[in-house]
């Protein structure tokens, strides 16, 4: 069994991270009836032996006597981390995993990346090393951060390049929350584009998530549970936005949205933690979904969003779940992959689903989805027998699809609108180590990335002839 370490940076990163740990505990408690430390738990939690204060925290029957999440929490202001330390998860973290400062990054990528990045370099590397040492076999770092602010975006990407430097063999999967167009941070386009360059160069894969999509999904679910037809009442703890059954009592404002991202991470790691008839390890994600090193942005989509409460209503057919995975409403960025070009697609199924169901649905959906000519059957599949809490089955689809180009183009637009006027630039250039060239290089990296996707898009729909085969002389 391999281990993963979660590195949560900045306000958003830590809030999502907190939801992740809560839901992870809930999931393991659900599966692990005896409350004993098992292999599956070991992928994210350390079993602390006796020197820890023997305070037993009970989560749905699972006695978390000494579970210590394999995590490093970084934030340049204390508010969020302090909240975690005062909340129900406080017993689990120890101070060596935390790195905080007081004044924050002022929504300035340069402050996060250059100033704090340099000041805290040693400490960060040290904490990462400690976390890694506790792992028997470290397979993956999950970095969670947002792109629009200063800490998550700037310091987060600095941490990413440190991870590459110090642990080049370990896979780096980054979950990045992209700001919506109406983001209240004016300089979020600068921060995002500067961070993009780092992601393109240093991450193994990136799971982009747009805030607006999360808002839309939450709205959709709330609408279903409040309006809706009779018989369509939703089973209470089954939505992907619910934290029911977890440790935290009341729901905080962004919890619903953050739960979605937490569920994404749980589903991605399910096949590595639990058994199934067709396993998929984390290192297989990059291997199968990243055909060219820079094109590693994988659009996630989660289904189902909820389970109906009325058990006499036949469970939403399995096939519907597969169709939904490709619908616009279930994508975690605002894009419609069906109308762009697929480079590769992974289907990670959880629950009581057999290979024949999988095959049938792939056969059914294939003709509707445009795949690049050299990867017509570009499907990676996995079957994990353990479903998520509240569902009998679930599906996570990860698509390497050219539709991300639209998100990037929008981002570039917003950047250019500010940059043209040199608006707010001085805040950045004042920072030690930051120069104008950082901006021009970042935007050019983004442009060339967009161009690579354009190039592939141009082949869409055209019938590419097969490459002429080698001929054997006889």
């Amino acid at each position: 069994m391999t281990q993963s370490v979660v590195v949560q940076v900045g306000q958003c990163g830590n809030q999502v991270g907190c939801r992740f740990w809560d839901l992870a505990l809930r999931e393991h408690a659900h599966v692990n009836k005896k409350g004993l430390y098992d292999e599956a738990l070991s992928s994210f939690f350390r079993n602390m032996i006796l020197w820890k204060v023997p305070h037993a925290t009970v989560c749905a029957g699972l006695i978390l006597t000494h579970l210590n999440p394999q995590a490093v929490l970084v934030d340049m202001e204390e508010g969020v981390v302090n909240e975690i330390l005062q909340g129900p998860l406080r017993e689990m973290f120890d101070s060596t995993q935390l790195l905080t400062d007081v004044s924050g990054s002022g929504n300035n990528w340069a402050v996060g990346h250059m100033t704090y990045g340099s000041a805290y370099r040693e400490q960060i590397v040290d904490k990462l090393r400690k976390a890694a040492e506790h792992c028997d076999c470290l397979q993956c770092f999950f970095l969670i951060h947002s792109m629009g602010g200063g800490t998550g975006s700037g310091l987060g990407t600095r941490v990413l390049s440190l991870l590459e430097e110090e642990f080049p063999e370990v896979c780096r999967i980054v979950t990045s929350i992209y700001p919506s167009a109406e983001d209240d941070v004016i300089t979020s386009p600068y921060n995002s584009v500067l961070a993009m360059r780092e992601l393109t160069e240093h991450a193994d894969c990136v799971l982009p998530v747009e805030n607006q999509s999360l808002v839309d999904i939450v709205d959709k679910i709330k609408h279903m549970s409040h309006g809706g037809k009779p018989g369509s009442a939703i089973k209470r703890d089954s939505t992907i936005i619910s934290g029911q059954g977890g440790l935290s009592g009341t729901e905080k404002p962004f919890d619903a949205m953050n739960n979605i991202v937490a569920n994404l991470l749980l589903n991605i790691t399910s096949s590595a933690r639990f058994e199934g008839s067709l396993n998929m390890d984390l290192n297989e994600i990059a291997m199968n979904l990243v055909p060219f090193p820079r094109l590693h942005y994988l659009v996630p989509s989660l289904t189902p969003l909820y389970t109906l409460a009325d058990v006499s209503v036949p469970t939403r057919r399995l096939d519907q779940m597969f169709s939904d995975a490709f619908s616009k409403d279930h994508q975690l960025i605002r894009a419609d992959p069906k109308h762009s070009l697929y480079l590769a697609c992974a289907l990670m199924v959880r629950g009581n689903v057999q290979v024949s169901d999988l095959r049938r649905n792939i056969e059914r959906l294939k003709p509707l989805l445009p795949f690049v000519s050299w990867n017509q059957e570009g499907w990676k599949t996995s079957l994990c027998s353990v479903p998520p809490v509240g569902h009998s089955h679930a599906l996570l689809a990860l698509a390497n699809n050219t539709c991300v180009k639209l998100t990037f183009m929008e981002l570039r637009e917003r950047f250019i609108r500010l940059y043209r006027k040199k608006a707010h630039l001085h805040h950045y250039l004042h920072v030690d180590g930051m120069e104008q060239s950082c901006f021009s290089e970042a935007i050019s990296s983004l442009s060339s990335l967009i161009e690579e996707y354009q190039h592939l898009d141009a082949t869409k729909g055209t019938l590419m002839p097969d490459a002429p085969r080698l001929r054997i002389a006889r």
Partner: protein
Amino acid sequence: MSIVTVQLGQCGNQVGHELFDIICSDALEGQRKVYSTASCERFFHQTTHGDLVARAVLIDMEPKVINQSISRAAKSGRWRYGESSHFSQKQGSGNNWANGYCVHGPRHRAVVEELVRREVERCDRLAGLMAMMSVAGGTGSGVGTYATQCLRDIYPKSFILNHLTWPYGTGEVIVQNYNSVLTLAHLYQLSDAILVHENDTVHRICSQLLNIKHISFGDVNGVIAHQLGSILQPALTADSHGVYSRNPLGELVSALTCHPEYKLLSVCTIPQMPSSSMAYSTFSWPSLLKHLRQMLISNTKMEEGIDWQVRPPAGSERARSFTGPSFNTSLANLLILRGKEVYSAETDGFEDPALYTSWLSSEEAFNLWKSPVPFNKYEKCATLVSNSQALLRPLDNMVGKAWNMFASRAYIHQYVKFGISEEDFLDSFTSLEQVISSYSQLS
């Protein structure tokens, strides 16, 4: 003589487990003492307490599947795996052939060799080694190829049979075609015979013949195990002089893979039907053999939708094109009949020279094994192991898709990272084009 099986990767271990299960229950069934003894000797080692311990080594780079196989075997109560006959690591090969072949294989070479050596030493006499693996992933294919290479070095005179499971055409792993090409090209130099099962074909057998509604990998593996078991269980051969053959792998290899350019073997077993229907069905050898022969000629892998229009060409006109109508030319065939009245079965249809390529006489090309003992609950069972053009189209498709992907250099950086270069890819492509060309020319 005994066979030592090496189960590699998730598929190899899952299928291997099913195989031993079927063999054990077939061996222990009823009052068939000589057969039972021969079968147990071949596949199991008997402890002083009378436990049957499989002559198998389980290898995987991550532990979940091996743990499952071992515990399921133990639960059966009838047989188990050896306590220390397995090796696993914590982290898999990531579907990367290069990672399996260049990194994990060499790193764990000593351990794997030691485990195999221990099993081999427990055998009175070694009939040969069978490596079971898939070609789509990273461990079965990459580590499996490396392991085969090591075994070939250590046991140069032993027979090595590789059992390969080919993935669904529509994909289980995106880079499966790369992994398959690299595996096949290397194994061709190392293996004595390569026995292939295709997931697509077996899946169709499950759905159309066995009427299984929700097909699981367990079902698929069950069919593969049944077919493989029907080949490997004891049988009377032309050379065995009235007793069960003691050299099954050797006889298989000499019957079928007499030429180094032709090593790919396909399998057909009939009948295949749901166990609920078996009580109500009767079979006759003439009917079974007639169907099986037509399945061979028309290259139909299962007993449904057989094209009866396809006929062997008459006399001297042997003009056939590769893409033309589907007459399947064989190099050699091995027919294995098991069950009641097996001595009355007439197999002349398989000796027709028109079925075979011209440079081998039909006496040499056709081989027959028999066993009067019914296998796996089937009153009569006929298996055909063929060295023919049956796998030509699937192989060509696989190479074609891999080549298209290679032309755009997609995913190549993932292999280069672990030590496989573009040159290595080109070499593998060249080898397989050679194989494809050889099989096309059989007509």
